[in-house]
């Protein structure tokens, strides 16, 4: 994003913008859009659940709550390692940066792996998004909304892992320094957002 991307604050400019560099501001703006995307999915779920409570099974009846609770913990841990990675690059600790990024990648990939494992088991039990083939507890709307929300969240985590691998490769080539933390910082913003969405989803899909 060459020359035009860098646009820091400067006291000679009476109207300097928000004092946030472009990449970071752009990521915040993009995340607002993401908020609206998940709002549409969660909103649809809330409306359908209120309209047809009989279609939704009680917590734990169909879904494996303990397994997902552990998975939630794994994802929260990955947010911690992401913070550690950012702290490392800020004090120019290249080894630490790479290590913590790698830890985040492993934890993120584990989360996706556990989710795939969960899906496979649910499919075997007849919990599928297809109304015709639906055999598990609750009704077809339960399966439809479950896979819609957790699936699109899982897609976001997967994309996040791919981006993390990209950031990791750049980091191992020494692309980041205390004066150039943008790539790591916006990666962190996205990652924490995805984590936050999961906490909401875990609560409304698995716990209540």
């Amino acid at each position, binding site marked *: *994003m060459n020359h035009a991307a860098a646009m820091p604050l400067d006291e000679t400019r*009476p109207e300097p913008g928000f004092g946030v560099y472009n*990449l970071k501001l752009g990521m915040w703006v*993009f995340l607002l859009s993401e908020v609206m995307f998940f*709002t*549409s999915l969660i909103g649809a779920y809330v409306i359908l659940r209120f309209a047809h409570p009989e279609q939704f099974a009680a917590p734990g009846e169909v879904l494996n709550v303990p397994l997902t609770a552990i998975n939630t913990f794994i994802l929260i841990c990955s947010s911690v390692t992401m913070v550690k990675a950012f702290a490392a690059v800020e004090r120019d600790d290249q080894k630490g940066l790479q290590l913590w990024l790698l830890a985040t990648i492993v934890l993120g990939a584990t989360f996706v792996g556990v989710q795939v494992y969960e899906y496979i088991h649910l499919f075997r039990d007849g919990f599928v998004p297809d109304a015709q083939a639906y055999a598990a507890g609750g*009704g*077809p*709307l339960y399966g439809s909304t479950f896979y*819609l929300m957790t699936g699109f969240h899982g897609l976001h985590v997967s994309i996040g892992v791919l981006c993390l691998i990209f950031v990791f490769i750049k980091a191992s080539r020494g692309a980041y320094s205390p004066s150039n933390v943008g790539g790591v910082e916006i990666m962190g913003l996205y990652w924490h957002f995805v984590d936050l969405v999961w906490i909401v989803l875990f609560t409304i899909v698995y716990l209540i």
Partner: protein
Amino acid sequence: MSATGSMKDYRMTGYAGEHHHHEPSFLRTYIFSTDHKMIAKQFLLMSLFFLLLGGTLAAMIRWQLAFPGQPMPGGGILPDTMAPGGIILPEFYNAMVTMHGTFMIFFAIMPLMVGVFGNLLIPLQIGAPDMAFPRLNMLSFWLAVPAGFMMLASFWVEGGAAGAGWTAYAPLSASGEYTGVYLGQQLWLVSLFILGFSSIAGAVNYITTVINMRAAGLTWFRLPLTVWALFVTSILVLLAIPILAGALIMLLTDQTLGTTFFLPAGGGEPLLWQHLFWFFGHPEVYILILPAFGIVSEVIANGARKPVFGYHAMVLAIIAIAFLGWIVWGHHMFMSGMNPMLGTTFMLTTMIIAVPSAIKVFNWLGTLWKGNIHFHPPLLYGVGFVSLFIVGGLSGIFMAAAPVDIQIHDTYFIVAHIHYVLFGGSLFAIFAGISFWFPKMFGRLMNQTLNQIHFAGTFLTYNLVFFPMHGLGLEGMMRRLYDTTQYAYLAEIQFWNVFITWSAFALVAFQFLWAFNFLWSMWKGEKAGPNPWRANSLEWSAPSPPPHGNFERMPVVYRGPYEYSSPESEEDFLLQTEPPGARPGPAPDPEPIAHGEEA
């Protein structure tokens, strides 16, 4: 991708005067360009193509409405699945009205407004060398193109293109069993989903650019109204499109994976689609019209040689309309079986929108009032916009009233209304904008005489086409009706459908005149200096067309964009870069220009 490069770097590399770059290759200049002006021109070409396509579909629709069951001239080239022997099939008619709406809204007007003017004007009017994220900008264009062609390709798949209307109401759209359209509807959904990525990428870019990259001294209330309008529009795009994306995904899985979000058979809620669609759809309406407000304010102030009347009120009205746009979506659903109490609420919020809209109209009139009006083509189109937008706005109030809407819902009254705001409104503003900023795209002026003829012809035939539709609607002619002569009460007033169709053909003919003018002026038009309209905002201090990097040196802004006929200046304009007090030799480029005749 340096995050915290120093200010010095930015100055050193950002501006053409100090920019040592070698000539980029053909591919990088014209195809995979990151220059916002080239991307604006690419969007212009793309959306004019889809505008032509949408117009062709409209002409075919008009043929069927005037002469149902008669072979269409030239219709023989269409395959038998669409129009055997040139006679349009009902299924194909459904696909035509669906795709006419889809192409015009998503692939013509929206990219013309946001893609073309957003890209062209934002960096130029805020004094920036380019967008905040030039490569993201390129991606935005190259996502829109495949989306458009995917939509176009759906005409030729088995079952034909989507036929459930541009609003794709469920359950009609949710199961191919109802329409016989399977793949066509799915391509429609995927295409709009991809276009959504394009729009969001653009919005992120525009918002970041306007916030962070304004020139020194360019405070929020010194921004031209076009920038304000495009900025607020970008916020609407950013927040509304993801709602559509979510709804499209649910509809797609209903079609393909066997979910039942919108299918009552599995407990789904068809009304949920309408809520989601219009929660996106009403902000979308303002995405299509807010940039027009900006453009029209610009050209009217320029033509009247007066400051915009009530600049702050204009800005606040844009923000108010954008905000209110989020809480009125239910007025599309009075007849959907929604709770009538809810309808009353939506009726009230909708009518409140008339207040900021009226503020804008009165301010445009106030700007013209006692002005030294130059009737150049942009002003003509701008005044055309105001007058037609008033008609569209007033018919909007009819529909906002739930009891009246019960009568006119889903009739040609609605068709008349949407065309008064989208064609009479948005498209006239687009004509104004293209003729006004043509020099900043191509370095030349459009032929003014041809533009004036085009304006007069379009304004006249436009009204002949769309005004009688109000009457047809009140007489009970249904929207999306295949054959008007099926109904005795409509067969009696068939004269009007024939009249509208002939007027529509004349309207189309005038658009070819415009297309000729556009192409001719691109290569042969009169060369324009930097400031042919003697306007104030920053783009007019750059050369026409501006070079890569836009400005010779970083502009510094001392005043607002509408200081026309100021006593500070002997000229009747003051560039925003003109320092206060230091008056003023001749402006940088006093070259007088073709203004058309004066009032």
